[in-house]
């Protein structure tokens, strides 16, 4: 039992070491030539544009549900406080749910795709072929994906925030019976730019987490089509856990640091 535990612990730190090495190599490869402009654009489309429908739906639903839950709770328990709904929805979305839900959706869509693609390249020896053709796989594959993640996640998060607030407003007006001016007014009074920045800083961290873990799991893939399937599943699970873990870390650094 202890041997097994020991082996798992060793394995964990071994993988953590490999993963850190991948991040290090990725960041020093940022400045190497040729700059992968074409594939950066492709990845921005794949991670950003292609995720839009899912992101918009998630944001609408989340905003609406938040407004509904808080609105009814406030209205029935302390009469009159339901006017704060706009502020509460905006605060929760920008600081917390916007970046986190957006990142988890992108992990499911784009993260799994990155692992499956790189994993397939691994098992069909395309990664070896890249190396023999003097193209470093980290520079050729990981750099454009990580850059695309860093650029697109804040943009998607901002869209989530805005669409979520609109979704909340729609419900607040139609279900709770608030008027639009009041909702907008309350939102603007509550919300500070610090809340938005806070969420956007998180989203940059999440962008790095999604793309680097997805790439790492792709590189580690072994054992044909089955291996690619396993790697993809493990990738999404690991990314989601890492997002929640780093959400706490970043939140605590940002709130105690400011």
């Amino acid at each position, binding site marked *: 039992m202890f041997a097994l535990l020991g082996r798992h612990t060793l394995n964990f730190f071994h993988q953590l070491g490999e993963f850190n090495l991948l991040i290090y190599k990725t960041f020093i490869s940022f400045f190497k030539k*040729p700059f992968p402009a074409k594939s950066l654009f492709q990845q921005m489309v794949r991670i950003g544009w292609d995720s839009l429908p899912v992101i918009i739906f998630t944001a609408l639903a989340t905003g609406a549900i938040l407004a509904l839950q808080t609105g009814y709770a406030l209205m029935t328990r302390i009469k009159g406080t339901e006017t704060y709904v706009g502020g509460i929805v905006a605060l929760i979305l920008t600081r917390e749910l916007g970046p986190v839900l957006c990142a988890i959706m992108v992990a499911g869509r784009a993260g799994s795709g990155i692992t499956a693609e790189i994993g*397939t*390249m691994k098992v*069909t*020896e*395309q990664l*070896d*072929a*890249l*190396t*023999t*053709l*003097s*193209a470093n796989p980290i520079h050729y594959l990981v750099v454009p994906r990580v850059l695309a993640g860093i650029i697109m996640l804040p943009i998607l998060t901002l869209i989530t925030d805005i669409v979520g607030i609109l979704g909340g407003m729609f419900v607040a007006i139609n279900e709770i019976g608030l008027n639009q001016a009041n909702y907008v007014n309350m939102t603007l009074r509550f919300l500070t730019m610090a809340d938005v920045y806070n969420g956007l800083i998180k989203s940059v961290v999440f962008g790095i987490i999604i793309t680097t873990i997805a790439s790492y799991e792709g590189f580690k893939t072994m054992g044909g089509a089955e291996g690619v399937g396993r790697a993809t599943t493990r990738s999404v699970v690991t990314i989601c856990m890492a997002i929640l873990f780093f959400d706490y870390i970043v939140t605590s650094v940002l709130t105690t640091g400011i």
Partner: protein
Amino acid sequence: MKNKKVKISIRNIKKDLGGKSVLKDVNLDIFSGETLVIIGQSGCGKSVLLKHIVGLFTPDAGEIFIDSEPITTLRGKTLDNIRSKFGVLFQGAALFDSLTVGENVAFKHIRAKTFSKKEIDKLVDEKLALVGLHGISHQKPAELSGGMKKRVGLARAIASDPEIILYDEPTTGLDPINADQINDLIIHLREELAITSIAVTHDMVSAYKISDRIAMLYDGKVIELNTPSVLRRSKNTFVKQFINGDAYGPITSVRPF
């Protein structure tokens, strides 16, 4: 093969993979301009040995010299420079699915950004013609048959005029006619371009046809190294069983049924 210059020298290579000792002590010299075929059972470490030669694997012990330069200890730019002497044909061709046939063949030239589009098109047509293919440069690898993929893989391997080509099971998975066409291509490349070649295979027809010398890998070591005609008459019982394709013999000492 006397008076020939040694192109690749493999010295005491050891490699463990997944707790199993795959290569125990491999020694081989490959001469400039010859075709050496490495034969052996599936999973005996032939491909692993091949990948050591181009620096895709680092040995646990031992060294490999390419033109007297130790590829096993080099890194970065110097390693890339040595690698550019190589062309590799992978087992499944390993074409990049996201790129067209033409972009695959001219992969290195397109990345170098020093060639005009015209020069690249010319290069692609020329290299594809060399492997007997025409007018497919705009297709995607997924649209090609297995034999065509291997040819495109070969065109990509020779695109940057390598001094050495490594073939990983060049004929595996092809029908006999396609396989023999690949054999002829390998011979053609050696004769026309004087390329040093190492091929890994368990296809004995191919091995006899394309090789100057054959090395048999068994239990992590080279157990025999000879010209095809001498090897055919080998006294070594392990070699005999393999080249004759017998189910029973010293390699498979336990009868499965």
